[in-house]
């Protein structure tokens, strides 16, 4: 019973971080029509930005804000310099660009930070993982804070998308870019900002992952990118609510596998899910991809 409670708590924590990551990826796909294959590496950039900040000021909230701003700016720059010029050239160039960006980020971080050896946040900037009981459910300070941060971000994102003019413009561009342009929406700018927002969410997830994993290397991004991709395919590319549902389902599966089977099989879940969904339901489980017709 305690074990089940631990699984549920773990699912909520991990699932909320996964949701951030996957919503970011989906937002980029919806607005910019790009499957950002370097989203996992963007997350790692966030984790390292957090690391840099906590080296000087050991405050996790500052690290979180720094990672959001840093990755948001990086996303804007990457969209302007790399993905915008590639738009309209078919599906291959953005995919290749994502792979190359991933290599550049991994190798750049490896060369900058101790040859890629694991780094840890200083003790003042981490959260206690010792468990205490709340009505018989074991919970740690770290878990409470992470879920709280994600909740705040989720509310903020919801307000941004539904209550602001920029959010309205993003949703319009996601659904009918040509129509949005005719109505005077500056589509190119909105796409850039959407890309930045999606990247900022990855950065936000990066700091939280650093807390959960307790260490980071430049290479943790690949598998996390897979996780994000699997979630998006499962929940339907471009669907934000699908990403949330998919994130919690995948997190739950991983928790159960780790606790009841073996943790070495955990990583296989995401890409097995990718293959199964793609092969048997090419349009995604709740997908909206449609075949091309003349």
């Amino acid at each position, binding site marked *: 019973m305690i074990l089940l409670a631990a699984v549920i708590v773990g699912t909520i924590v991990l699932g909320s971080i996964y949701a951030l990551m996957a919503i970011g990826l989906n937002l980029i796909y919806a607005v910019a029509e790009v*499957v950002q*294959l370097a989203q996992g590496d963007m997350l790692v950039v966030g984790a390292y930005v957090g690391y840099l900040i906590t080296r000087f000021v050991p405050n996790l909230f500052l690290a979180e804000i720094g990672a959001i701003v840093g990755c948001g700016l990086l996303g804007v720059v990457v969209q302007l*310099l*790399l993905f915008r*010029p*590639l738009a309209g*050239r078919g*599906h*291959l*160039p953005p*995919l*290749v*660009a994502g*792979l*190359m*960006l*991933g*290599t*550049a980020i*991994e*190798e*750049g971080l*490896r*060369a900058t930070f101790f*040859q890629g050896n694991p780094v840890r946040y200083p003790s003042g900037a981490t959260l206690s993982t010792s468990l205490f009981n709340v009505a018989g459910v074991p919970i740690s300070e770290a878990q409470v804070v992470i879920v709280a941060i994600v909740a705040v971000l989720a509310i903020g994102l919801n307000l941004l998308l539904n209550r602001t003019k920029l959010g309205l413009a993003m949703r319009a561009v996601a659904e009918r870019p040509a129509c949005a342009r005719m109505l005077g929406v500056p589509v190119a700018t909105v796409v850039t900002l959407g890309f930045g927002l999606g990247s900022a969410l990855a950065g936000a997830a990066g700091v939280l992952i650093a807390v959960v994993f307790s260490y980071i290397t430049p290479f943790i991004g*690949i598998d996390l990118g*897979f996780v994000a*991709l699997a979630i998006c*395919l499962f929940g339907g590319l471009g669907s934000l609510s699908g990403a949330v549902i998919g994130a919690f389902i995948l997190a739950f599966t991983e928790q159960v596998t780790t606790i009841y089977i073996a943790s*070495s099989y955990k*990583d*296989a879940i995401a*890409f*097995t899910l*990718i*293959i199964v969904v*793609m*092969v048997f339901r*090419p349009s995604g489980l709740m997908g909206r*991809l449609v*075949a*091309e*017709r*003349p």
Partner: protein
Amino acid sequence: MNWAYIGSLAAIGAINLLMALSVYVPLSAGLLSVAPIGLMALGAYALAIAMAAGVPTPLAFVLALAVGSAAGLVVGLLTVRLTGFSVAITTLGIAEVIYTVINNASATGASAGFSNISPISSPIVLTACTLAALAGVVVLESSIFGRQIRAVQLDEIAARSVGISATMIRLFTMTASGLLAALAGVLYAGYLTYLDPQEFTLGTFNQYLMADIVGGLSSVVGPIVGTLLFTALPEATRFLGGWRLFVFAILVMIVLVIRPRGLLDFVPLPKVRFGRRKLGRRPPAMESAALTFDGVTKRFGRVHVLNDVSFSVHPGTVHALIGPNGAGKTTLLNVASGYVASERGSVLLGKMRLNRRSPDFVARAGLVRTFQNPRLFPSMTVSENVDVAVRRYQPEQKADEELWRRLQLEEHAATRASALAYGQLRRTEIARALRTGPSCLLLDEPTAGMDREETEALRALLLDLKAAGLGILLVDHDMRFVMTIADRVTVLNAGRVIADGSPGEVQRDPAVVEAYLGEPGTGERSTVDVEEGKVGRGGVGNVKIDA
């Protein structure tokens, strides 16, 4: 000169080239496959395990190649229905599964790797294998099959419309990619004599991909030059130290943005060298066959786009299909040519059922179409576009100068399709359709975008084709053209056949007048856009409906 060092560089270069080719072959069909890195591992480990089990070296070599090719075919089968980025993502998953297995299974030595492999990759073996593989790719690329692979890359729908089986081409390129990757893996294992699973990750794949992107995908010269560059560069850029791959990745991104077709953009598409290149077409209507629609029904959601549509297009006739916008004309063409499956009813060419057949099968059966928006291969010339439609070269074939003159294409033969005007695009598309030697032709709005002179030339051509026994199903909005060329007219409205007969009968049919001009007596013209000043009284002869 340190010959041992140069030798090792050459060996690594040869393996790099094989991998660059393994990534290049699917790319030339428009597929980004990450599977090669996993298939390279399969080949390498298959050799190592087989030799450790005492299998004789040549047998182990062949076995490893067979494993790689078979795995490539499986990758092809798993991804054959997928389009665009889905192929990349699925193969990424496949490569990661293979990596996870070799990194954890005891048979492969898990993360400790596999050592003590016999050194079988002598310089002679390496050179011979690499040259053989390279020769294979060059021959493939300069054959008619190579042209078809490129056609699938440029526009799969158009390629299928002239009978190219994109399915077969995708399976073939994925299998060939698996063979090349396994060969690279085998030589790699036999050269290094140990295997480290960390060498078979996405990071390594990206390095092979870099060579293809920087060299360019116009022809096999791209991967060759790219590989030379990336084999030599690490030596020339030692001063970069740990930043080497970072700098390379940035450079590749710059190339991707400012030279999308790679550094060797100026290298033209490979010329077809197998068989004599002849312009012209097989005589149409090798065996004349009627095209029959029998009760064809199709719904999109709750809307009946086609409702029990039945009529026949006989050999040696021009049969027009007209109707207001949204009547279902293009959908009917899509059903006939295999792009859309009907729910009920059948489409027959002669006695052959075409229902639920692939578009390329339909085209090879002799039913060939053009598109409402012309779909040519933009980077190919007019004559290359037309030649794509040929399945094999027939040296005895006579060039049909007459057809080219008729379609006013002879002076444009060497022009890239991307530089053509709209009417020229349409004429090229018709020439391409005829090049397949069809027994029945489906033309979707052939006169749209054509001037009067072009339209009259088309009329003459269609009349000749008709006289030669070809059946032609014509969808067009130029009523003057339709009513003067058609032997028979079928009128669709809201998915139903509302009239079927000679042009004269149809024009007098009250139901047709109603469909085009609104309710009788009310003067309402809600379903048509009538061309200014050309509204005829009591007939539809002059009515022009917008596309």
